[in-house]
């Protein structure tokens, strides 16, 4: 039988292994309550507050020029960051999963770095790096290249925060798929690029898509790092999350929630797509063999 390549095996639920029905009911109830308090209510709140003054005001808040500018900037950032990080993720996963070399564990741990670094610190390091106190920063200043308080800074800070997502998805996937198919391909005479594009890429497409979706969601929603780097200049260096903050701090709650609802909507789409992909993968794995 071909080697099992599934990472997550989900058995059919309902294998409840004889937990007493009363116990089950209580536990499920507790879970639902928890979800209600921490997830459903916040979700509902966003839309309730955003629509509080009526649907007209809701749309106005979104169509407002500064809001639109924020949307544009956010999308632009994502459009740059996600492909770059996807290429990195695929490259790193290829190097790590198909070869053996010393220092591999260290390399893999480095990929987890952004999770251990507070977003504020992520923003800070780029402010410091590009600020006038370092040689690099002064070089930038001399050449009139602005990073902080402008779009490039936002892009780079977002790159930092989101770069592991694709790699972390692909590495376990590619490791579990092994090297056999690639080795077979080279014995048959395929060159490097052919091996990758014909054999490897199709095998990882779902994992890649999933990683890119996570990366997109995160880069759209990143707040702390961008907050530090951007300077909050409305219309110029405001992303959607920053705009939400500004509106809120001006007590313009309705508008704030209205704009926030865009993000909520995007988050829900992300979550739904992810569930769909997992479902697809699950179906694929239980194919008749």
């Amino acid at each position, binding site marked *: 039988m*071909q080697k099992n390549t599934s990472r997550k095996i989900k058995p059919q639920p309902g294998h409840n292994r004889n937990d007493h029905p009363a116990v089950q009911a209580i536990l499920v109830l507790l879970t639902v309550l928890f979800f209600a308090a921490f997830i459903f209510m916040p979700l509902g709140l966003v839309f309730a507050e955003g629509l509080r003054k009526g649907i007209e005001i809701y749309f106005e808040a979104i169509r407002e020029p500064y809001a639109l500018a924020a949307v544009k900037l956010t999308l632009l950032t994502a459009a740059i960051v996600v492909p770059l990080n996807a290429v990195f993720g695929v490259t790193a996963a290829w190097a790590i999963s198909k070869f053996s070399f010393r220092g591999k564990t260290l390399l893999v741990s480095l990929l987890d770095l952004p999770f251990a670094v507070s977003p504020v610190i992520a923003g800070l390091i780029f402010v410091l790096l590009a600020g006038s106190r370092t040689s690099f920063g002064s070089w930038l200043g001399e050449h009139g290249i602005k990073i902080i308080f402008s779009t490039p800074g936002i892009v780079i800070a977002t790159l930092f925060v989101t770069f592991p997502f694709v790699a972390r998805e692909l590495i376990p996937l590619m490791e579990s798929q092994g090297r*056999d198919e690639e080795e077979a391909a080279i*014995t048959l005479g395929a060159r490097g690029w052919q091996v990758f594009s014909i054999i490897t890429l199709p095998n990882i497409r779902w994992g890649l898509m999933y990683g890119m979706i996570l990366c997109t969601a995160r880069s759209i929603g990143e707040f702390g790092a961008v907050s530090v780097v951007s300077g909050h200049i409305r219309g110029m260096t405001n992303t959607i999350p920053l705009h939400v903050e500004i509106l809120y701090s001006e007590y313009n709650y309705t508008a704030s929630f209205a704009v926030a609802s865009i993000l909520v909507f995007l988050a829900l789409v992300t979550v739904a797509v992810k569930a769909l992909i997992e479902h697809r993968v699950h179906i694929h794995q239980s194919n008749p063999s």
Partner: protein
Amino acid sequence: MSIEIKNVTKRYANYTALDDISLSVETGELIALLGPSGCGKTTLLRIIAGLDTADDGSVILEEKDTTNLPAREKNVGFVFQHYALFRRLNVFENVAFGLKVRPSGSRPSKSEIRDRVEHLLKLVQMDWAISRYPSQLSGGQRQRVALARALAVNPKVLLLDEPFSALDAKVRQELRRWLRKLHDDIHVTSIFVTHDQEEALELADRIVVINKGKIEQQGAPQEVYDHPANAFVYNFLGNVNMFHGRIRDGKVLLGNHQVGTRHNLEGDGDKDGQAFIRPHEIGISRIRSGENDLPGIIRDIRLMGGQIGLELETQGFDKLIEAEIPRETWRNLQLSKGDPVFITLDRVRVFTGDYSI
């Protein structure tokens, strides 16, 4: 294509996988690399294919030193233990792969590729599955597709890494016979790796027995089976009973008991060693047939099919002796547990020197 392996060595951090191995393979031969797990046979195969690199030594394919050639350029067909079919491509695309990735200069036309793939699939009896995907095929079917895929590029050498070990016993047997027939038709130089001595004995023109990175013996199957070079080979190629024995005055003594042997031991002096005999070489009868016969009692009977296994307890040996007799004999003698019988050990083989099973 002939293969010449010269002084190949491969070392890992704390052990030596291949220790100065040299081997030649004639064009058109089907040879088996046989040995226990971890003996280095798969490593050697992968080095020949270019999927691993040797630390020392060279691999020469048809007079050309290919030691440092990348796998891509070696024109060697490789069949993996777990098939390694491209799961996203269907059977046709799998088999056609090697032809499709050729540089545009040497790539055959679409119709030529189609013809070749269909021909090969017919050869391996998988033409009906041409549009199926690997996940829709059984293990044996996948392995046949893998074979067709490897043959598609007209390799000069075919290398098979334990090709049937992942399959059910019955399928394994069928495919064995089928592979032998295929080889008789195509005559590609082939090397296959196995740890199953039955498989090696049945399939190969020549068997190379490998242990701990060294070649213990090589030769035709009958040769290796009937005239094993040492205790390891003997033990690996079938079941054995092992006794501690002595050679004295040209006779073999197990304990105090003299037994017969095929060897001519005149003038061998006094030596200690180990004596082996295979279960089916032991004679069982109800009456004493020779002066060296051993009396014993049947402790257990195993009805295994065509052969019947007996466990015999004797005085003088603390281990039980395993014997095998044909079913007819068992029926004729009407043997049952607890019966006293006489055991004839006249084909004992002795190896002096250190060996432990």
